[in-house]
């Protein structure tokens, strides 16, 4: 189903392309040895290179290059063995050199593709135009002093990957799904932590609208949107603005806009006429970046399993596509699932992880890597079900206690006497007691009201404080009821 915006003149399609700036996970900056840790005291992670001091020269950080290549491989993209850094010249107080070192003409990564999954289960391929490496600028703080601006250069020189998509998305949902998937891939690869609230990932959103069947109309760029939700809102707000403008007989001018998250509207930042002339030219301080093909191959060989491959593997293990999707969203979740599933029935483990475990985890507000119940502990619980020490219903209670106390399931079962009863004598006794108390219902059942069977199971389990082995209870009950 195509997403459209209904205007007075009919439906409008939305065309979206994203430029995502992803901070490279690395110990040091792109061209200096300064640290990159988030949240450090202002100007505490700045080398003379980052501060643009006289005579300072950039030296490429090989790990950042490797991260860009890994990312390119993860995006199924072409890796350019020859790329080059250019200078993008403009003046700003938090840009110490007066230029940003970027890759304008010759990026390190070329065209690739990302497969997104939509809510209806359908998939779509989103083209990647390019990925290039560049350095971040510092930060201007305008709210620290009534008349002065402060500058924090901690970010200055930090390595960014700019990942540019084709204008292949057609709805806010697709834009959201693309960003989610991209973030997932980066986190799987370990090339970007994807923390949007710390600014590790930001998106520039290009939006245009058109009548179905038309070519592209003029686009606007909404700069620096810092959450997936805001990206989806910004797409919608900007698309609606453009539809209104066209329908009023106006013209959309190419410009850079900002998304006002409070009011849910975009507003103009600068028009095309105000656009900088960046005077790009090859940075003479840096020779072209030449990669050895076998080095790229070695990175490729060492790549972790990516979400798509892992999902396919889970489906092959017998999981439903939905469970496979949910379990692979985060690398940590998948790792947790696999730790539990090792040597156990994958389908059962998936049910427990996506069901009771996730539900309990959500209540704690913690991430899977901080879960009070370890993969080993959950595995032990499932083993207790498998060896019929406890039944599934009791297991749910045990899991809740595990979340509360952090105790191991075996200890909980022993301390609280939760072992299920497999003694047929005890089960028979309980059944006879229930049948005696419900003689009328027994008669009804025997006269053909089969549905009452569940009622008897419930009553027997209740009489046994839930500890009866469900299979045995069923079996004996069937005999007794005849």
């Amino acid at each position, binding site marked *: 189903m195509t997403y459209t915006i209904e205007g007075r003149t009919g439906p409008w399609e939305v065309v979206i392309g994203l430029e995502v700036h992803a901070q490279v996970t690395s110990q040091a900056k792109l061209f200096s040895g300064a640290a990159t840790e988030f949240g450090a005291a202002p100007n505490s992670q700045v080398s*003379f290179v980052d*501060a*643009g*001091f*006289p*005579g*300072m*020269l*950039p*030296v*490429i950080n090989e790990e950042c290059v490797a991260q860009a290549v890994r990312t390119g491989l993860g995006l199924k993209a072409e890796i350019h063995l020859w790329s080059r850094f250019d*200078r993008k*010249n403009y*003046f*700003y*107080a938090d840009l*110490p*050199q*007066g*230029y940003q070192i970027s890759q304008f003409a010759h990026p390190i990564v070329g065209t690739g593709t990302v497969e997104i999954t939509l809510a209806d289960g359908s998939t779509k391929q989103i083209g990647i135009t390019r990925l290039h490496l560049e350095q971040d600028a510092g930060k201007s703080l305008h709210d620290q002093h009534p008349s002065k*601006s402060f*500058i924090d250069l901690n970010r200055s020189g930090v390595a960014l990957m700019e990942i540019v998509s084709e204008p292949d998305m057609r709805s806010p949902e697709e834009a959201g799904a693309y960003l989610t998937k991209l973030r997932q891939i980066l986190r799987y690869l370990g090339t970007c932590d994807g923390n949007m609230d710390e600014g590790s990932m930001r998106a520039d959103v290009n939006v245009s609208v058109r009548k179905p069947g038309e070519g592209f109309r003029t686009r606007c760029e909404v700069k620096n949107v810092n959450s997936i939700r805001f990206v989806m809102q910004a797409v919608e707000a900007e698309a609606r603005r453009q539809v209104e403008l066209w329908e009023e007989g106006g013209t959309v001018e190419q410009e850079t806009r900002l998304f006002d998250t409070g009011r849910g509207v975009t507003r103009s930042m600068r028009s095309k006429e105000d656009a900088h*002339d960046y*005077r*790009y*030219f090859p940075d*003479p*301080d*840096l*020779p072209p970046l030449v990669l050895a093909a076998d080095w790229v191959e070695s990175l490729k060989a060492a790549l972790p399993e990516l979400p798509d491959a892992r999902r396919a593997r889970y489906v092959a293990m017998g999981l439903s596509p939905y469970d496979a999707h949910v379990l692979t969203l985060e690398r940590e979740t998948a790792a947790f699932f696999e730790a539990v599933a090792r040597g156990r029935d994958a389908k059962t483990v998936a049910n427990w992880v996506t069901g009771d475990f996730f539900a309990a985890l959500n209540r704690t507000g913690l991430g899977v890597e901080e879960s009070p119940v370890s993969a080993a502990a959950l595995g032990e619980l499932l083993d207790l079900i498998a060896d019929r020490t406890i039944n599934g219903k009791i297991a749910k209670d045990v899991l809740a206690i595990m979340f509360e106390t952090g105790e191991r399931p075996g200890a909980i079962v022993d301390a609280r006497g939760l072992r299920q009863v497999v003694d047929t004598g005890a089960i028979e006794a309980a059944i006879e007691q229930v049948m005696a108390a419900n003689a009328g219902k027994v008669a009804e059942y025997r006269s053909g009201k089969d549905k009452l069977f569940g009622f008897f199971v419930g009553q027997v389990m209740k009489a046994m404080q839930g500890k009866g082995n469900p299979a045995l209870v069923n079996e004996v009950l069937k005999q007794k009821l005849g």
Partner: protein
Amino acid sequence: MHPTDFTLRGAIDALNEGIITSVELTQAHLDAIAALNPRLNAYITVTGEQALEQARASDARRKEGIAGPLEGVPLAIKDLFCTAGTLTTAGSRILGNFTPPYESTVSANLLRDGAVFLGKANLDEFAMGSSNTTSAFGPVENPWSRANDPDTRLVPGGSSGGSAAAVAARLALGATATDTGGSIRQPAAFCGIAGIKPTYGRCSRFGIVAFASSLDQAGPVARTVEDCAILLKSMAGFDPKDSTSADIPVPDFAAACARGVKGLRIGVPKEYRLEGTPPEIEALWEQGLAWLREQGAETVEISLPHTKYALPTYYIVAPAEASSNLARYDGVRFGLRVTEPNSDLRDLYERTRAQGFGAEVRRRILIGTYVLSAGYYDAYYLKAQKIRALIKRDFDDAFGKVDAIVTPATPSAAFGMDEKQDDPVKMYLNDVFTVTANLAGLPGLAVPAGLDAQGLPLGLQVIGRSFDEETVFAVGTAIEQAAGFTALPRLRAGA
């Protein structure tokens, strides 16, 4: 013999033999500076106390039997090299108060080898100039003057005018310099001394205030070719802090000086026979070639067909890079800041840069900004890069046939301080013989070879293959020995 009259080689020998101490040698140079620098203005900053301290430490090391290759040798450092704890101005008002907390790799290498720093040598602002008249700290005077007109003050050339004048006037045994289009070779020639711009990548650019990154290269000036060879050996070497520095071994350049030229093929580019070159320069060139032939070399006419485009190419590439390299001087983090009470950021930029940069620097920033602008980039910058590649290829072809190329170093002898100041293009023509080596990244040496009719020094230039400074030194030494250049400038220590 006055201690300032030593060559650098001679001083090292004298120090080794215990004939003189570094303190005595350093003090003699400081005295000479005190006497002559007020007139010559070759130094912007004299670090007398520090120099004597270094000299004492050096003498102590020597006593302990530890002596580096330049142990105790007093040098001048062009004020484009950052020196930790010492004012580093680049000849500009905008860095008039800048004291770097770090040392350039080249100067650090010299300190490692035992050198003593007398101070920071004057230069054209940001190394942009051919006369050392654009310095914010006043012009440098050439210690030489015309025989028949001794009162006309002459320029020492530029941009390393302070370095060259200091060495010529015996205010230092040698000096560091940098060369982007001729800034070592032209002042060396104007001041009657030797100077080499090594192959691009031979010396680290780390800690040198950048002018045009793809052309800038550090090198020494000294009174003999061998002294240059000794200094370059210490200055050069791979530096992981400069991505354009070459990871190849540094040979013993001084040993190469004595190789001789027997059997070498010396190229004589016909395109360097320019109309309007003074006949005495043409004659000196011929003389130099004759000397080389007498010592067993063969001279061969060669063609470098794209030579005529070199100067315009240089004056696109160099300002383009400079316009970007100089963007960091914005008044925000260091150096000069000029504001008014209500200045916003743009106003701060405009005032700081308008007052901080001199006219020539502003001109080159404007030219550079223009040639990189949208709509002009292809016609200027891109085309210049293409021509640069052709110029490089000219040399590659030539070096398939010859081992070195010999040309005049400059199209004239030193000129008066008030000459050529009204016409930047006339000034730019000073670099006509030298810019090609920068564009091609090749080593080029200027060696004093004779005097003009006015008694002013004239130099010849030797250009070599990439990373073949050794042949350049051998050819330079051969010319030097045949020329027997013994003339002295009028203004000099001990005169």
